[in-house]
């Protein structure tokens, strides 16, 4: 079960051991990490679980579906090359040690 570190908008880092298959959004919300809203509960509908993924891991993530790509264009915080929606990335063993940064607005 991979350890994922979330950096909250105020800079606080929190690390959790996520069950395999849990989304990065679920891992954050269920544990009470602040800054992720997840209005739609993980249906790729609202773009309020926007995260910035550690550059070193970008290539290890599952490829983005067109839907996620379009939603990220509508996200409130600036879209960067390492932007993803937390609900669309599921925990795998390859993601051990991943660090994600949460933008200050969703």
């Amino acid at each position, binding site marked *: 079960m991979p350890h994922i570190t979330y950096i909250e908008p105020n800079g606080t880092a929190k690390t959790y051991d996520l*069950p395999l*298959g*849990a*989304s990065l959004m*679920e891992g954050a*919300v*269920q*544990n*009470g990490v602040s800054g992720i809203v997840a*209005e*739609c*509960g*993980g*249906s*790729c*509908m*609202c*773009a309020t679980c926007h995260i910035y993924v550690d550059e070193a891991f970008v290539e290890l993530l599952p490829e983005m579906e067109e*839907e996620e790509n*379009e*939603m990220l*264009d*509508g996200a409130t915080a600036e879209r960067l090359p390492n932007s993803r929606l937390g609900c669309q990335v599921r925990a795998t063993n390859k993601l051990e040690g991943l660090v994600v940064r949460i933008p200050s607005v969703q």
Partner: protein
Amino acid sequence: MMNKIVIVGAGHGGVQAATSLREMGFEGTIQLIAEEAHLPYQKPPLSKGFLNGKQTEENLVFRHANYYAEQKIDLVLGEKIRELDPQSQQLTAVSGRVFSYDKLIIATGARNRTLPSEVAPNAFYLRDLTDAQRLRPALDAVDTVAVVGGGFIGLEVAACASEAGKKVTVLEVQDRLMARVLPPVLSDIFLKKHQEMGVEVILQARVSREVLSEYDLVVVGIGVMPNQELAESAGITCHNGIVVNEYQQTSQPNVYAIGDCASHFNRFAGKQCRLESVQNAVDQAKIAASHICQKPLAYDSVPWFWTNQFDLKLQMAGINSDYDSYAFRGDLGANKFSIFYFNREKLVAVDSLNRPADHLAARKLIQAGSTPTKEQVEDINVKLGAI
């Protein structure tokens, strides 16, 4: 000294209210009372990802148990509240347990309308996790399924069952699908998709015991009614829901109501209404919490909804019940387009089919009261977010 908030109902609204109270600095006691024994969870996936097995119960949980402990939210599971006494500011549970409050938030949601049991004696309904946990294995064990009701829930169940290889028949009494909320062009697209995927759809259907007895399993999705009895029997004003003002206060000012059970004036709908959606529950929860924390904000959110059926993802922003013209954006033939609805040249609603970026832009436009021209809508090179 206001010290204790009780929240009845731990769905999307109830949980959000508890979370928001803490985020807004409320330091007193919060009791969050759930009728079900489950840790609070999300409902939308029950008729989608949970039913088709892509999501498990663990995926649906809002927060782990230790979150409530850390936030000092007293989560009370498995207590059904039967009585509210606004004079003594007390609630009584079926178990006899008594809860007293300084302020009360009613977030009791809605319950399914049912068919008479002589028509559908063994029918399944889908509202909560227990229903879904029963329905999933029952579906696995049968070949033919009748779905009564061609609304969101019925059609989402039909799509899941069909994808699982079941022979599915949808029985809808009206002459088109989702007629309450969609225009005919979208009803037709969903009809064709279901038929293409092997679902038999019977419109203007007659539903009787004889008709239903031909199927191995019957699922009924014919709408919901508000759980307002707790408030009503306490003398609080109810009329198709618990009537609230823009701060979610009921006719008893220290009693609030939020979510599916609350009837409010919605400026985007232009009328008094109840909305059955995650958006409404979550946003009204924040409004009630802000009022309790004396940082009042008035409820003023654009309603939005969604449904997933097969590869069709429909997102609705605003209320499209009252419009006099419309414009299309995108590709109708490819099921990838949005319909922009105007009333007296003002944008009032947008339905987006497989066009998620349009949906996000539409919510912002409607909230701001901005109206693009029909030429701007039709030209996909014009970025709507920039208008």
